[in-house]
C-alpha cells in the first residue's frame, strides 16, 4: 500500500516543497506552522519531522527552497502580509561527541506588502540569490541578497504592478543564457473577464521588468508553474484554474530586441470537472500532477506526439488507483519505492562526502 505519514498539521496544508535533492520536504499549513521532513532511511524510509515551528501569525501559503549552494534556506509566504527567509543553523555542540542541534532561524521578514503575500519563489540559481513574492495587492516584488553569506539583508530591487490580486507566481527555470529572466504570475479574482495570467521579462538594457504577454485564461487561477526546461526552445506553462491548461511559449526572434512570444495552448483538461488547486511538474517537465477539489490526484504525461494523457488518477481517501484505459479499479499489490532508489545506491556514499565539503 502507499505509505501514509501523519502530518499532524491542524489545518489544511497549502504547499509542500522538496529541496534540491529531494531528501527533505517542507510543508506549510493554515495552522501557521512550517514542518521540515526527512526520510529516516535514504529513499525508502518513513518521513520524520525534523523541525516544526510556528512561523507566521497567519496561514502560510507557499514555501520555496533555495539552491543548496546558498545553504539550507527556505522562504515562506503568509496571509500575515509578510514573507520570511529561514535558515537552518547548527548550534554550538554541548559536548564534542553529540551531534549539533539544528534550528531554523528567521533571517529576514519582508514586510513591504500591505496585504497577504500569496507566493514566494527563489529564482533560478544563475540569477544569484533572488526572491520574488506576489501579493494580493497585485504587486510582484523582487528582492536580492547582495551578499549571499548574509541572508538578513535583502534589497527590494523591483516592484512590478499587475493591478489584479495575485495568487501565484513562477520563475522560468531555464538555464539557457539567451533567455532573459522571466516570471509568470496569475490572479484568482473571480469577477472580470480579463486575462488572469501574465508573463514578465527582465530587460537587461532598460534594467526593468516589462509585461510581455497576457495569457487569456479568464477563470480564477490558483496555481501556475513553468515546466523545468530540458533544453527545449520553448517554455511550457501549466495553469490550474477551473481546469488545467498548458501553454507553450515560443520566443519570436525580433530585430528590435523586444521579445515577444508565440503563445499556443498545448492542452486543456476538463476531466477534473472542479477547481484545480495545484499543478506540479516532474523534474524533466514531462509529467504533470494536478490536485483538484474532488480529492483526486491525476498524473498526466506528454506522449511522443506532445499530447497529454492522463496516466493515473488517484483518490487517496479510497486507497485505490484507477487507470483510464482500464476503468476497473484494482487493489494495489505492494507498491514499492525501492525500484528507483536502488539505482542510486552506488552513488550515495559519494554523495554524502561531497555534500560535506
Amino acid at each position, binding site marked *: 500500500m502507499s505509505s501514509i505519514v501523519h502530518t499532524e498539521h491542524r489545518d489544511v496544508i497549502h504547499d509542500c516543497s522538496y529541496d534540491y535533492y529531494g531528501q527533505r520536504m517542507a510543508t506549510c*499549513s493554515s495552522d501557521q506552522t512550517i514542518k521540515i521532513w526527512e526520510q529516516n532511511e535514504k529513499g525508502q524510509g518513513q518521513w520524520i519531522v525534523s523541525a516544526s515551528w510556528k512561523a507566521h501569525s497567519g496561514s502560510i501559503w507557499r514555501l520555496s527552497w533555495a539552491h543548496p549552494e546558498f545553504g539550507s534556506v527556505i522562504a515562506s509566504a503568509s496571509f500575515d502580509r509578510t514573507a520570511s527567509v529561514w535558515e537552518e543553523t547548527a548550534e554550538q555542540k554541548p559536548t564534542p561527541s553529540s551531534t549539533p542541534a539544528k534550528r531554523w532561524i528567521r533571517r529576514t521578514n519582508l514586510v513591504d506588502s500591505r496585504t497577504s503575500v500569496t507566493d514566494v519563489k527563489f529564482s533560478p540559481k544563475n540569477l544569484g540569490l533572488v526572491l520574488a513574492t506576489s501579493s494580493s495587492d497585485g504587486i510582484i516584488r523582487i528582492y536580492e541578497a547582495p551578499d549571499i553569506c548574509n541572508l538578513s539583508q535583502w534589497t527590494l530591487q523591483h516592484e512590478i504592478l499587475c493591478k489584479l490580486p495575485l495568487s501565484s507566481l513562477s520563475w522560468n527555470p531555464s538555464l539557457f543564457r539567451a533567455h532573459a529572466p522571466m516570471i509568470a504570475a496569475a490572479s484568482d479574482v473571480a469577477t472580470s473577464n480579463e486575462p488572469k495570467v501574465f508573463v514578465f521579462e527582465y530587460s537587461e538594457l532598460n534594467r526593468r521588468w516589462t509585461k510581455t504577454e497576457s495569457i487569456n485564461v479568464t477563470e480564477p487561477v490558483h496555481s501556475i508553474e513553468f515546466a523545468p526546461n*530540458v*533544453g527545449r526552445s520553448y517554455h511550457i506553462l501549466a495553469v490550474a484554474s477551473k481546469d488545467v491548461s498548458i501553454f507553450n511559449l515560443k520566443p519570436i526572434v525580433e530585430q528590435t530586441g523586444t521579445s515577444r512570444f508565440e503563445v499556443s495552448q498545448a492542452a486543456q483538461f476538463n476531466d477534473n470537472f472542479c477547481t484545480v488547486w495545484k499543478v506540479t511538474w516532474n523534474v524533466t517537465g514531462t509529467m504533470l500532477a494536478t490536485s483538484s477539489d474532488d480529492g483526486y490526484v491525476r498524473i498526466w504525461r506528454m506522449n511522443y506526439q506532445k499530447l497529454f494523457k492522463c496516466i493515473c488518477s488517484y483518490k487517496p481517501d479510497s486507497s485505490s488507483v484507477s487507470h483510464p484505459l482500464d476503468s476497473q479499479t484494482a487493489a494495489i499489490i505492494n507498491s514499492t519505492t525501492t525500484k528507483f532508489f536502488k539505482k542510486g545506491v552506488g552513488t550515495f556514499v559519494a554523495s554524502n562526502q561531497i555534500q560535506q565539503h
Partner: protein
Amino acid sequence: MISYFKNSKDKFALATGSEVSLFQLKERDNVEDFRIYDDPKPQTINQIKFISQHNSTLTYLNSEKRYQYIKCIATSFHENELLVATGQVSGKVMIVDFEPKNEINLEFTPRQNRPSLSLAWNEQEQNLLAMGFDKNKFDHSISVWDISRGQPSESSIVNLIGLSESAHSLCWDSRKNLIAGMSSKYIKFMDLRANQVQTVNTRAVCGLTISSNNRLLASYYDNVVNIFDLRKFTEPLNQFQLANNLAQISWCSSSQNCLLCLQKDNSLTINIIDIHGNGTEEDNDSTHFVKRVIAPFEIVDRKNKHQLQTKATALENICWHPKISSNRMICSASNSNNSILLMEFDVPQRRIAVFDKWNKVYAPTHNEIRDIPVSSPPSSPTNSTNSWYPNANYIDGDISELFQQRILQDYGQMDFERNAKVSMDSTLASVWKMLGQMSAQDCFIGLRTILGIDSKSNELTIAQSAVETRSFQDFPSGATIRIYKSEEREFAKELCGWMNFDKNDMSGNLQMYIEELCKKKRFTRAAMLAVFHLKIRLACDILGRGANEMEEEKSSLRMSAIALAGYNTGSVWKLQCSSAQIEDAYLRAIFSFLSDDTYAGVLYEDGVSISDRMAFACTFLSDRQLSEYVKHMIQNCIERGDLSGLLVTGATIDGIQLLQAFVDRTDDVQTAALIGQKILPADLQTDNRLQSWIAILRNLMNTWEMFEKRAAFDISIASARTSQKIPKSVFLLCSFCGKSVSAAAIQEDARVRNQMQTSKLSSCPNCRKPLPRCSLCLLHMGTSLPSNFYNPTNIKSRNIKSWFTWCQSCRHGGHLVHISEWFKKNTECPVTNCNCNCFLIDLSLLKEKKENDTDGH
C-alpha cells in the same frame, strides 16, 4: 429533506411530500469505490437508488405518512428515541417516534393557521423544541415547547416570542440561547432565562446554522451568505455572494470549518466554504475563506458511466453525518424518472500533489502524507487477470526514468558503439552507429560540406562531376542509366556506409556486405543495394534466396524476384511497377528506381535510411538535383528533429539546429548534450544551446545525486578541450623586487641555451639580487645541479629535484633533493641553531604522500 439522528450513528429520516421515512445505513468491511443499490422503498416513492462510496447498505425501516405537505423536519438529540418533529403547511407540528417500543405521538397546532417555517431541538435540554412560523398579526411566531411535559398547554409551552413577526429560521447555541432570523430584517439573539435580547440588523435571516464549536454562525438571503463570529456578533465576519439563490446552508458537524451551500439552481454542484486559521487564534485577522465546488453525482457518473442509468438531474438536500470525522454527508437528488437518488459521500480533503525528484508523487493533506503507489509487477507472472498491470506503473516510460538508467550505464562516456547499446532506443542506436562511422573516418563535417553545398545561396557551389552512362552489368536489358562521379561524391558515399562498393569490383566487398545482410535476413535491403549497384541479377538471386529462407514472406519475396527478373524498358512493365502497392519500403524503392526516371520514389521514401538515400543521391543525381536534394533533406530533418540527418548536416550550425529540433520533439536533452559535446568542433562547443543542454544535464545529475557520474561527465568535457594548455598557477617571486623569478628564468634559459651554457641563475634576473641558498649544498637556488652530483634518491623528475622547497614555519629550505635526503635521517631543520621540527610538522602529509608514492610504483 434528509436529517440524520444526531445521536445515532447510522439512522436518518427522509421527508418526501407527505411521508417521513426512516432508513439505516450500514457500512461493510471491504471498501470498493462506488456501489449502487436498488432497495426496498417506502410506498409513496417511485424508486430509490442509493450510491455509496463506502460499500454501505441502505435499509428501509419504517415510515409515517399521516401528514399534509411537510415544510420542515427536525431530528432530535435523544439517545434512545428516534424523534422526528415535522412542520407542515398548516402550521401543525407533529412529533413521531420511530422507536417501536415508544409510543410518543404529540401534536402542536398554532392558534392561527399558517405555514411552519423552522424547527430546532435543543442539544442540552433535549426535550426543548423551538418552532418558528410565518407571520400572523395575532400570534407569536416562535414557540418553545418542552415535550417532556406532554401535549401543548400552558405549562409545556415555555416561551412565546415575536408577536406578528415571522421566524424564518431558528437555532440554539450551546448555552441555551435561541437565535432566530426574523421578519427578513434582523437576527435576534435571545437568552431565554435572563430574558435578554440582542438584535443585529441584517437581511440574512434564513438557514441559521451554528458551527460545531459554537463560534461561528451562518445565515443567508437570496444568494448571499453571511458568516458571523458569535463573540463579535454585530458585524458579519465575511460575506459571500454566490451565483444563484440559496436553498440550504449547513455547517459540517465533524470539522469546525466547513460550510456547505446548496443553491436553487437545479445543478449538481455544492459550494463549500472552508474557513481556515480560526482554530485557536484570538484575532480574526488570521481567518480566511476558501470557496470550493464539489459535485458528488458527477464524480460517480464519470466513474460508472455504464452502470448508472438513471442520471441525477438536480441536488435537493444534503445532511452531514453527525459523527464520522471524514466530512461525510448524505445527499439526495431527483432525476427525470421521478425517483430519488441518495448518495453517501465524503467531501474530499483538499490536498496538494507534488512530484519528488524520482517521479514519485506525494499528496499531503492536513493530517497525512501519502505517496501515490506505483504498482510493481505482480509477483507471479501467471496471474494474467491483472490486466491493469501494463499501465499501472505510471512512472514507466517517462524520459527522466530513461535518463537515470542511461546515466547509470555510463551513457555517453564510452565509444559510439556502446552508446548505441545503452541508448535503449533503436533509432538512437542507429544514430550512434552512424556517428561511429563518421568518427572512424574522423569526419564530422557532414555530407553537405563534403559535397560543397551552400545551403544559403542558390548558386551551384557543388564540384563539377563526371557523367558516365552505365548499363546493368549482369542483366542485359538494353537499359542504360546515368551515374555521376566525383571525388567528393565518392567520399560522401563512403561515409554513408557504401564505402567499398566500387562499381568495378564485381566480386569484392559488395557481395560480402550483401552476404552479411542476408545472414541477418534483411533480404530486401540487400536486394535494394544490389539493384542500386546495377546488379539486377544478383538482386533476383537474393530475393529468391529470401523466399526460400523466410517462411512467412515467401510469396511476396518470390513474386518480387519474378517481377524484378522481368525488368525491361517497356512501358507496360513500368506502368505496373509504378501502380503496384508494395508493403516493403526497400522493394518499393527498387521498383520505383527502375520505373521512374526522377527517382522521387527512392529519394522521398522514408522507409529507407537517410544514409542509403544520400548515397543513392550521390550516385544518380545531377549536380543541381543533388544540391537541391541535400537542402531539402536538411530542412526536412530539422523539421522532424530526425537525428540521422546529422550525417548530412554534420557538426555545424545546422547540426545544432537539428539537435535543438530533436530536443523539442523528444525532450531527450541527454542525447543532445552528449552528441553535441562529442562531435562539435571547438568553436561550436561554446554555442549557447549546447552549453545550456550540458548545464541541464549536469543539473539533473546533481539533483539525482549521481555525483560520480557527473564528475565523469565533467572530465570528458574537459578532456575534449585538452589541446589548450593549462596555464601555470604557481609562480616564484623574488623577495626583493617582487617580480616572477620563474618566468624570467624561462626566458633566460632560452637565451642561455643558445650559448650552450647550462647553468648559473644565482640572482634574480630582474634586480640582480642573489637568490637564497640551499641550506645544505650552499649553492644559490635556481642553480642547476651538476649532472654528476650525488643523487641517492630515486626522484625521477629532474626539474623538481633541483627546485626549492622550504619549511612553512621556519622558512629555511633548499633543493628538494637535498632536503628530502636530510629529512630521511633527521627531523630537525638543517640550519644550525634552528630548532624547528620541520619534519614533524608535516608528518601526516608526508605519510600520505609516501603511501601515494608506494601506490604509484
